[in-house]
């Protein structure tokens, strides 16, 4: 399922790029294509910064999510300001767009962590059983 969703989203992304870039090349209408590339660049910067914050060990993991959210908002507001995505009067729209996406990502992360914890616990049980079996099978007199 996960692979299916990944494939679907990746394909959608490529189609969005294609339907903005091809008409831009053909008709010389670059406005939408430039906006898509600005978005791609902004997301790239966010992902790179999150890679860096992942390396930092924090005693309170919840703090990491808050830092990640702060970074994401800062990057979007910064590039949005440079590329004039918003008027100062409606800056709240940036928050309204970023926060719901971030909340969804947060819950997906929690779900992923729980799934991994469950898998590790199953590994631990299997390993314990294997070690126990080996212990019991240790030779008596041969």
């Amino acid at each position, binding site marked *: 399922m996960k692979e299916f969703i990944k494939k679907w989203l990746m394909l959608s992304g490529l189609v969005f790029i294609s339907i903005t870039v091809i008409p831009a090349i053909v008709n010389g209408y670059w406005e939408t294509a430039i906006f898509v590339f600005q978005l791609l660049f902004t997301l790239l910067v966010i992902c790179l910064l999150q890679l860096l914050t992942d390396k930092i*060990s924090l005693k309170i993991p919840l703090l990491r999510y808050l830092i990640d959210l702060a970074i994401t908002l800062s990057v979007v507001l910064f590039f949005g300001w440079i590329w004039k995505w918003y008027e100062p009067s409606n800056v709240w729209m940036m928050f309204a767009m970023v926060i719901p996406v971030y909340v969804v990502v947060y819950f997906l992360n929690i779900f992923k962590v729980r799934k991994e914890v469950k898998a590790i616990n199953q590994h631990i049980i299997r*390993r314990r059983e294997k070690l126990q079996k080996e212990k019991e099978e240790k*030779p008596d007199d041969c």
Partner: protein
Amino acid sequence: MKLIKRKIDGLAETEIEIRYAQMDAEAAELIRRIEQTERYIYGTDNSRQYRIRTTDIYYAESVDKKTFIYTRDAVFRSELRLYQLIELLKADDFVQVSKFCLINMNVLESIRTLFNSRLEVTLSNGEKVNVSRTYLANINMAFASKEGESE
């Protein structure tokens, strides 16, 4: 090659005696493998140096750039840095669970998430150690590869 296994009650530790007519490739490989399974690391406690069997190590952690080795009921200081220990113990059943901690996979009892998104493992001696969520995939992979090796 003839394999003789014998249970001897009251023996303090397992003994292996290899009898060979000449040191050929087979005998050398056998010795190498046995030496690999019985490995030691040195640690100090109250200025006394101890030889710690790697299989007796529960976990190792780095605190303020000092490395500590924990066995079931003792703690030793190691002169090695954590990354050196990781390198030394990578062939054994150890897995890194955070930037500062390395755990023996054979003493893991369970792992759980805490209410504030923190992760914690419980060891077979009841001790609890914090786990970083960025190392979860690493732990999962370590177990999967060990399972793959044994199949």
